[in-house]
């Protein structure tokens, strides 16, 4: 136990003190602060003084050739409202003239309204996300509907009221609000996955480095291999946890620091983590991390050089990516309680991600959570034991990594040898 703590301390300090750890943590924290504050800054400048710089002469021009409606009045009014800061100019120019002037930049864009329901939109560059076409369609449709209603005998006000009417929809959810949790779950899932993969790989690299530099030759004579491994895995895990806690608390603090109104609701939704979700994420990070890093550490102990490492750990890496994919597809499809997901909640490799997504996006019975956590705890214990046995063989083996069958054979032999020594020490 003393050895585990000593190794743990050394690994933790060694890990936290590395430049890459400090830099990556700092980058994450800065990014999160930016994500929280930047939209607020951007939006406030835009709405506050966006159009002040234009004098009348410089105002960009929107040319409209109206051949569909008798009066220009309503069309001009609607367009002026939608395009504040633009000069709405009525003309009689035809398509080619308008196109030419849009081309030279004299007009920002032009509309050629031939019939109430048919309009040509002339623009220099059709931007993908400008939203201009949608907005114009809305304006023109509204105009048509109003005029038609007026023709049918309604007053202008009455017809406008009909056109502008909108149903107010209140949603009441009896269970978990999937829509509201979707993005925050997605983000926590990503963090969970990245953290498990990143720190698991960190463990495997550190194991290979110790073998490669032959530091293991010294260590193995000072402490039991299992103590070395547990110390290393727990130490690196704590380093990872430190990083996660720093990042998540930065996120919580900065979201609370910005005034809620300065953020558009979409972004507020992204950052809408509830405390118990964060706690669940931490729990499943710890479990998932141990499940994977024990395996990765054990496999890494078989490699003598870092070049061998990738080949050795790729099966486990594929497993973790597959687990991630299954869960992401399930939450994207909205059906987080499908049979597949339920099964995945009890398979050690997929359980941390699957059960987390299900808890976050639906109502899961307490016994299901407990069972999944139980399965994971048992797997941590078993994988820990298996990893310790493999590690013991692996760390002093150099040369080509052995085949799986050879590993099993050696494990059996070691088991037999251990039994023998126990017997002989008893007798």
């Amino acid at each position: 136990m003393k050895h585990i703590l000593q190794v743990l301390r050394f690994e933790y300090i060694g890990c936290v003190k590395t430049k890459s750890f400090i830099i990556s943590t700092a980058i994450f924290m800065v990014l999160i602060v930016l994500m929280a504050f930047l939209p607020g800054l951007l939006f406030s400048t835009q709405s506050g003084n966006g159009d002040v710089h234009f004098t009348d002469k410089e105002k960009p021009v929107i040319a409209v050739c109206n051949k569909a409606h008798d009066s220009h009045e309503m069309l001009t009014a609607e367009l002026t409202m939608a395009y504040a800061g633009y000069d709405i100019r009525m003309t009689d120019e035809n398509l080619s003239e308008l196109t030419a002037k849009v081309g030279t930049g004299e007009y920002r864009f032009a509309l050629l309204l031939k019939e109430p329901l048919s309009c040509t939109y002339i623009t220099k560059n059709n931007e993908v996300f400008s939203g201009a076409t949608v907005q114009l369609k809305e304006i023109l449709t509204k105009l048509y509907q109003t005029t038609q209603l007026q023709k049918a005998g309604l007053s202008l006000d009455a017809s406008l009221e009909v056109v502008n009417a909108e149903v107010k929809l209140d949603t009441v959810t009896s269970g978990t609000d999937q829509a509201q949790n979707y993005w925050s779950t997605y983000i926590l899932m990503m963090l969970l996955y990245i953290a498990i993969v990143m720190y698991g790989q960190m463990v495997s690299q550190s194991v290979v480095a110790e073998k490669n530099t032959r530091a293991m030759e010294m260590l193995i004579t000072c402490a039991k291999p299992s103590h070395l491994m547990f110390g290393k895995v727990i130490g690196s895990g704590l380093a990872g946890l430190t990083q996660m806690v720093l990042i998540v608390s930065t996120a919580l603090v900065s979201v609370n620091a910005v005034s809620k109104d300065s953020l558009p609701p979409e972004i507020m939704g992204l950052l809408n983590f509830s405390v118990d979700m964060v706690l669940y994420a931490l729990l499943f990070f710890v479990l998932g991390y141990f499940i994977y890093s024990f395996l990765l550490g054990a496999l890494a102990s078989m490699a003598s050089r870092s070049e061998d490492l990738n080949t050795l750990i790729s099966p486990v890496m594929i497993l973790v990516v597959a687990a991630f994919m299954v869960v992401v597809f399930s939450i994207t499809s909205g059906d987080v309680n499908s049979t597949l997901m339920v099964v995945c909640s009890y398979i050690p490799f997929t359980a941390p991600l699957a059960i987390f997504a299900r808890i976050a996006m639906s109502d899961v019975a307490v016994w299901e959570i407990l069972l999944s956590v139980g399965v994971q705890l048992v797997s941590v214990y078993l994988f820990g034991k298996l990893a310790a046995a493999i590690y013991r063989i692996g760390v002093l083996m150099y040369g080509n990594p052995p085949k799986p069958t050879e590993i099993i054979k050696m494990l059996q032999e070691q088991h037999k040898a251990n039994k023998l020594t126990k017997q002989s020490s008893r007798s």
Partner: protein
Amino acid sequence: MELQIRDIEKHFGEKEVLKQVSLTAASGAALGLLGRNGAGKTTTIRIVMGVFFPDKGEVLWNGKPLDRKHIRIGYMPEERGLYPKKRISDQLIYLAMLRGMNHAEAAKACDRWLERMNMSEYKLKKLETLSKGNQQKIQLAATLMCDPQIVILDEPFSGLDPVNAMLLKDVIKEMIAGGAVVLFSSHQMNYIEEFCDSIAILNGGKIILDGRITDIKHSYPRNKIAVTSSQVEQIAPFVIQHMGEEIVSVEPDTTADHTLMIRLKSADSKQKLLQGLSDKGFDVDMFRVCEPSMNDIFVEYTEASV
């Protein structure tokens, strides 16, 4: 105090690596563990260190099973191993703590040993910034920091310049004088002869020769005589005539000037030869029985088999 390895057997898979290996190393003297590559030296050492369990046999300390929790063992592996990217003081303290020191003791021992190795200025440097010889010294400090009762050194001299080799020799002699049991493995026979009172030669997993070096050397026939003199040209014909039938060969020594190598049929006629040279009044600088060197003995015992 005495470290005893008794009847150890070990196999890896089908391969038998050690067969009935027994050794005894006493404190205040060094035991040279010799053998060709793959003879089983490292496996033997690892069994002593408790890294491997033997299939049979035991490791004893003063007659009782070696308790590695209480007996401190310092081991310097042939494949040097420390963390290249970590500060020297950090890793020395870490290793000493794993061996049972508390932090304060470890820090003190770290300073003391760096001082002893003339390496104090490098305390806060990363290991990889040091030259190979200096890294070697750090490795030795790491081995000896816990003040071990058993010291196992595997090729400690490789890569050291003569000055550092002197320093290392002094340190090892101190350890021996201080009562540590020293196991010394090397292929550099001159060091073995310098430090070790006894040797054990492993070959193919078996001990094929062990004992005190002087005894081993004395067990060889003492019939080879080297005579150094300025008058070797006159001595050679005299010896042939004087010794007659009792002589095997007389040849000039290829490795030294003015020296004759005289091989006698029996070591008993050595006295007659000396008497003859003396009576004749030759100016003899040196008259010496040629013992086989450690190198000769090693090659003789290990050449034949793998």
